[in-house]
């Protein structure tokens, strides 16, 4: 009897978890988003800490050339936004939100850098649906996820976490949010952290 009740509950749970997800998905992507359902919220171990020097990197940018972290040293605060993968539900509506708040980043003298482990052609096709992005989008595709791994946000399936790193002008990490991969970080929290940076 207990087994039957368990099976019944399992059946119900299966249906509800298979249902559409509450991502507020934009019609801009129509049916092109691959939804693999809820994922393990976090699947990596950080290799950096607040107060430490952020590891430098240079990655190919979607717009051409390479962008390095060190090029902003002494000039701007930096926000690194790792998102797990192109064409997935939450990622597809995180950067379009950042795309309309350049002024808020500017107010804090911060540049935003988007990073995924996808290759450039994929990033090109995907970000075209978002309109023209004002911030650089970098590909951590090859060697696969090397920067994500250096920061400790590379998941065991090869995607990165949904993670935000705030790095000050001296290159010191001031804030880390390795977010539940299934949810979008709230903008006001990031802005609050930028507010704390020395002017």
């Amino acid at each position, binding site marked *: 009897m207990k087994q*039957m009740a368990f099976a*019944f509950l399992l059946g119900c749970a299966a249906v*509800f978890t298979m249902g*559409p997800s*509450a991502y*507020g998905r934009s019609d801009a992507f129509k049916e092109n988003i691959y939804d693999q359902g809820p994922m393990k919220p976090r699947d990596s171990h950080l290799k950096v800490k607040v107060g430490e020097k952020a590891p430098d990197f240079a990655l190919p940018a979607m717009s051409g050339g390479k962008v390095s972290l060190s090029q902003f040293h002494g000039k701007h605060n930096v926000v690194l936004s790792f998102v797990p993968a192109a064409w997935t539900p939450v990622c597809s509506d995180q950067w379009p*939100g950042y795309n309309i708040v350049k002024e808020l980043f500017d107010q804090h003298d911060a540049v935003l850098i988007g990073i995924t482990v996808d290759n450039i052609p994929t990033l090109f096709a995907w970000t075209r649906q978002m*309109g023209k992005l004002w911030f650089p989008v970098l590909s951590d595709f090859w060697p696969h996820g090397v920067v994500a791994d250096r920061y400790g946000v590379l998941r065991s399936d090869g995607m990165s976490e949904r993670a935000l790193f705030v790095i000050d002008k001296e290159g010191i990490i001031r804030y880390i949010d390795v977010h539940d991969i299934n949810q979008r970080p709230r903008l006001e929290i990031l802005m609050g952290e930028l507010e704390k940076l020395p002017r």
Partner: protein
Amino acid sequence: MRSLIVFIVGIWMAFSMAPDALAADGPRPGKPLPSITLTAPESPAHKDYLGLSGGGSFHIPQIKARVVIIEIFSMYCPHCQTEAPMVNDLYKKIEDTPSLKGKIKLIGIGAGNTPFEVDVFKKKYQVPFPLFPDPDFVVHKAVGEVRTPCFIGVRLNSDGTDQVFYQKVGGLEGVDHFLGLILKQSGIDQEQ
């Protein structure tokens, strides 16, 4: 074997018991609007626009209007961003048309958006009509987890009932075109 059968029956029952939201197809025209509770706006102008008195929460049918157009949007949605000026034009057109002003009201609900995020959208696009946050997707789930933007037309009847007469995901396809559909499908054009 028996457990497998019970599992299958469980799935079937869950589907049949699941709310309309599970179908992800939004409110169905001809049906009442799912219950939506919103917090009254702080702005006196917006409160006045909606015909609300006092603070606290309210339900859509309490809005003083014959027809309410609800835009389910998100600050994070590129199409919502692109459409925002046109939706503002829609509001202006309604307000500038004496025969429509007061009869048709427009509100926006930010799916998954916090008050801060809704405020960012409002300021960025200078949205003149009331916008409401829905940070935990409560309203979004109630209306079927539709893609954004989604426009829902609700007719508020004099007997206190309400009825969805229009629901569409995607852009307006022109203010005049959209307004024409709203007038025709709500039946409000017959009353003028």
